[in-house]
């Protein structure tokens, strides 16, 4: 379980470093850097805070990850979750903080 950083998209704002509950991100040459990817808890806080959608959360293959990844974009009260499937196909799910879960 961890986070992949798309270096070309990273603007170096440091939001991920500020929000990560484990304090796992560091800044290196103006870009975000995750020195210990195996320390990630997968809470997804960083992918919600990244203004450039430069972070991808993925499941480690040791717990069944298949190469897909997820990131999120916030639009008002909505979060658009973009899941990249292993075959590069996209699946988009939207959650809204104004509506409670049915389950």
């Amino acid at each position, binding site marked *: *379980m*961890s986070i992949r950083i798309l270096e070309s998209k990273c603007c170096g704002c440091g939001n991920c470093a*500020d*929000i*990560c*509950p*484990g*304090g796992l991100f560091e800044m290196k040459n103006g870009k975000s850097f995750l020195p210990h*990817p*195996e*320390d*990630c*808890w*997968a*809470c*997804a*806080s960083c992918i919600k805070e990244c203004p450039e959608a430069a972070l991808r*959360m*993925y*499941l*480690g*293959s*040791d*717990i*069944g*990850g*298949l*190469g*897909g*990844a*997820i990131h999120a974009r916030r639009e008002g009260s909505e*979060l658009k*979750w973009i*899941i990249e*499937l*292993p075959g590069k196909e996209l*699946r988009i*799910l*939207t*959650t*809204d*903080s*104004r*509506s*409670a*879960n*049915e*389950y």
Partner: protein
Amino acid sequence: MQWIFASQSVILYILVYYDIQEGETIQKQLELRYLSADFLIIGGGTAGCYAALEFCRASDGNVIIIEKANIRRSGCLAAGVNAINAYINPGSTPEGYAAYAARDAEGIASHDILLSMARGLNDTVKRMEELGLSVLKDEFGRYSARGAWNIKINGENIKPLLAKAVAAESRIAVFNHVWAKDFIVKEGRAVGAYAVDLKNSILYAVSAKAVLCATGGAAGLYKPNAPGFSRHKMWYPPFNSGTGYAMGLRAGAEMTSFEMRFIALRCKGTLAPTGTLAQGVGAKQINALGEECEGKYGRTTSQRLFAAKQEESEGRGPCFLKTTGISKEQDEDLFKAYLNMAPSQTLKWVESGKPPSEADVEIEGSEPYIIGGHTGSGYWVDNSRQSTIASLYAAGDASGACPQKYVSGAFAEGAIAARSAAKLLGSAPEISASSAQEEKEKLNAFFGRKDPGYTARQLEERMQCAMDKHAGGIGSNYRYSGKSLAAAEAEILEIESLSSFLRAETGKDLAAIHELRDRLLVCRALISHLGARKETRWRLFAEHADYPLKDDGWLKFVNSVLRGDKIEIIIRDVEKEGSPDEH
């Protein structure tokens, strides 16, 4: 921040920077600064943030929150939460909730403490709704129930909502990215705490009239299910290092029920919650033959875990939650529900192409945690949530004898502690400059010393292996014996002694060393508790191979204190209708 410094003169020791001889890293030595507040809260999670808000309602004093991450996404609710699991639905009573929680803990709980928490539950939810939390309602505008004591919410934003409310209160100062090291106790009274700002290399000596321990519990004591790349994909936050308990032990506070470990039965691999499947869509726990096995050994939390493990050990595993047959619409709703609390599970369903309607969800037990919000482990407190040390309070995962408090119970306890703290009069006591100086020197000694040839990470892995093998981890089917506990203790003591030679090159290293040492102390206390309870009251949570049966002679609290360098066990009676001894 001017006001913080107002009550005490600012004494600033600027130290000369120095280069570490052997490496290229230049670590700025810590400088010392003094702060002061009426109410000091360690940990800006569920209980801590709520306590800060409540203190401002009950008093005109000021608050400092010390938080090692950022309160917007720290603690176990970082990813969100999608149900309130402690709520008094119409027709139920706080007394009923207290009885239910005590039953689930097989009687090892304080009735009065449970009751005081249960009475506060519904108010906290109302307040959170006012702060913007979405709660599912029925056609009549009433909260929609999920089971006897549960309501449905969308708590993806529960921490940002709390953080926003805290930011709006000018009397609360939040120190993010600052980790607490130790309480300061003077003549039996808590007068503050030491805390370290890693980024700015500052040691804060914070004095306060009242101090609240609102930290998380302890994860990372035992080897996890996937100890390799996904070593931190556990259920409870891997960043909860048991520091609140360790600080309390070192300060001389009494702890209770560490042996009532919590082992979570969760979705395999992601360790995502299962309540949403079990209670939300009514998925039954089944074995590999498709037979229902949930109630086979009883229905308490530990018995449901035991059912899954027992089916496995008798050759009928693995176990699943039977979700096949639910509708595609339910799949979609579940995807969203999990995105709001454990997005890894949604990713798993979607990327594998096997949604819950098409494949039952395999379940597994986590490694054991110490966590007062689920079981009864934590500080021994009275009804005001004061610990055995005057003006030191505990709430949420940190406080004990009050199992099944969950999110709303942590809020309720934070509120009780804050109202108690608001009644303390006088001003924040002075902190002795020589003690603060000594503390700074102790911390700075970790920098620039000789490389011992091993790292905190290596010692942590050794600790997790020792606990796994000898103190009832996953690898030993959660069982232990007097002999195995003695082996665990010997190894933990050796690791503790090795850890005192660790070298820090960066602030992060310094934090990692101290988190390891906090975990080791919690391990030591835990081993003493496990050995002291000479029965098996809770299946797997505390499965003593030498005493495999429940013995009602042990309907007692096992408590502990650290005296000198030894953990001493204290046995206390469970008062059916009374509280733990007032002190």
